[in-house]
């Protein structure tokens, strides 16, 4: 969410093709906006229907405007519970995958060691492997070993499929670091740990944060892997899936809208901050 959106500064705006004198229809722009409209259509629908004043169980036809669902956002105890599970797993995944993924990324970016190629390959495979395969494989293991599915199983699974994303993000940043800075610190008498703490870590922090947030985002959104290993635990996406059978209460739209709002706010802050930093 963070570093990737930075427009690299070397994109040379001044050498681009000269602006054409004639005014023409900018088809590219229309096309891009069309794509954006397509992307936003169901989101608009979701937000609008969080204000729908429905009577029965089915939030499908428009029956009038109301704000009451926002007041009753946490009325469905099991939905709230599901959301809490999702957030708890997301935060724990962020912390665990963020830590061990960063360490792995640091090792891969900074050092040469035996097994490096294999590690890269495994990470590549873990990112590319379809979610169904990951979920099915983990469930197979749990069945064979006799581990009960549930909260811990979900956490194991989420760390497993997000750790590579963190490692790769951090590795990319480590590679671009200037080793002279660390050398300078050591020349000034700093020990290995002090150098890491005061020089390397601060420079890696944006990438670690980006990786952690990515892990969080992937974790709270996951449905397929979770459905294999969830056992008795119901997460937010699982709850929504179950509720499609009986009618999704407007509270789901409310929570979806709120999460969307938080994401949008974070993203906007990020863009603004990045702009300010650059200028």
């Amino acid at each position, binding site marked *: 969410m963070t570093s990737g959106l930075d427009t*690299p500064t070397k994109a040379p705006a001044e050498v681009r093709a000269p602006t054409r004198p004639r005014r023409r229809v900018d088809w590219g722009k229309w096309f891009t906006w069309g794509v954006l409209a397509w992307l936003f259509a169901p*989101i608009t629908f979701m937000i609008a229907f969080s204000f729908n004043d429905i009577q029965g169980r089915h939030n499908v036809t428009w029956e009038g405007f109301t704000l009451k669902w926002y007041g009753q956002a946490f009325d469905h105890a099991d939905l709230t519970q599901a959301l809490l599970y999702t957030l708890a797993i997301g935060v724990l995944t962020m912390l665990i995958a963020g830590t061990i993924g960063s*360490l792995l990324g640091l090792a891969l970016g900074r050092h040469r060691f035996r097994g490096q190629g294999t590690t890269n390959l495994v990470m590549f495979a873990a990112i590319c492997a379809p979610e169904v395969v990951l979920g099915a494989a983990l469930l197979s293991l749990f069945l064979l070993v006799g581990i009960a599915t549930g909260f811990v199983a979900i956490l*194991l699974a989420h760390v497993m499929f997000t750790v590579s994303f963190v490692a790769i993000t951090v590795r990319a940043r480590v590679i671009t670091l200037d080793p002279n800075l660390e050398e300078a610190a050591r020349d000034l008498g700093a020990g290995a740990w002090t150098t890491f703490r005061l020089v390397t870590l601060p420079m890696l922090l944006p990438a670690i944060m980006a990786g952690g947030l990515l892990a969080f985002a992937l974790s709270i*959104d996951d449905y397929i892997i979770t459905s294999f290993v969830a056992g008795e635990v119901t997460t937010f*996406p699982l709850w929504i899936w179950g509720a499609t059978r009986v009618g999704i209460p407007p509270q789901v739209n409310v929570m979806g809208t709120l999460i969307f709002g938080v994401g949008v706010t974070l993203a906007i802050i990020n863009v603004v901050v990045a702009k300010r930093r650059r200028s």
Partner: protein
Amino acid sequence: MRRKLTPYLLALPGWAWLALFFVVPLAGMISLSLTSGNVITGFTQTFNVGNYVEAITTYSEQLVRSLLYGLGATLICVAIGYPAAYWIAFHGGKHKSTYLLLILLPFFVSFVLRTISWKFTLSDNGVVLGTLKTIGLLPADFSVLNTAPAVVLGLAYNFLPFMVLPIYAVLERMDHRVVEAAHDLYASKLQAFLRVVLPISLPGVFAGGLMTFIPTTADYVNASVLGGPGNTMIGSIIKTQYLVNNDYPIAAAITFVLMAVLLIGIFSYARALGTERVMEVQAK
């Protein structure tokens, strides 16, 4: 000595996690796929290859369909994502990052919820189709929901950013003076695109294709929510066999077949596009 150990110590937790919960489970799944028995008597290892025969003969139709749907969704993503990425990279100006952000924004809404929203949006008498029918743009008995196009479009919708981002990343890093040089050498716009821009951007298309084709082929959420009879995808079968029928050997065998087919697909794709060079999208 200590310095030599450092990388191993750093890599150990992450490596162990991936080994224990990714590599070993895959091996476990293969092992499970060769067992026989049923849920009541238990499953014992008999190296029963018959599971694969049963899996392939029973579910080849769903497997082929999944590959076709995945391919369709990927092609749609290229067709839609390439021009959009191109326009943002070359003509986005100072709003580039804003456009990119807009492409990503829908993904702050849960995947399942997004797909379900499509279902309601596409309902026969819903907001979109209902309106179009009332003003006479569509025949009254027209419907999209529960058809193959609905599934493929849903897949394309859900995975479009995976295509846009890599293509954008390559085009963005491209030295625009190369295009100018082509123009100076009297290349037409089309020639400049085909001869210069497209080859440079191919690694991005490859990465995007990979990141779109694999998850769309194995997805079952879109088929379950937006599909109808005859649109079942292989992921759905895997889930049913594991979680509903508890027929683990068949389930594991189907999963393995899916994985093998995808791997073969990826490698032949990589070879066709110029193998290893494609794998490394140059960072510089």
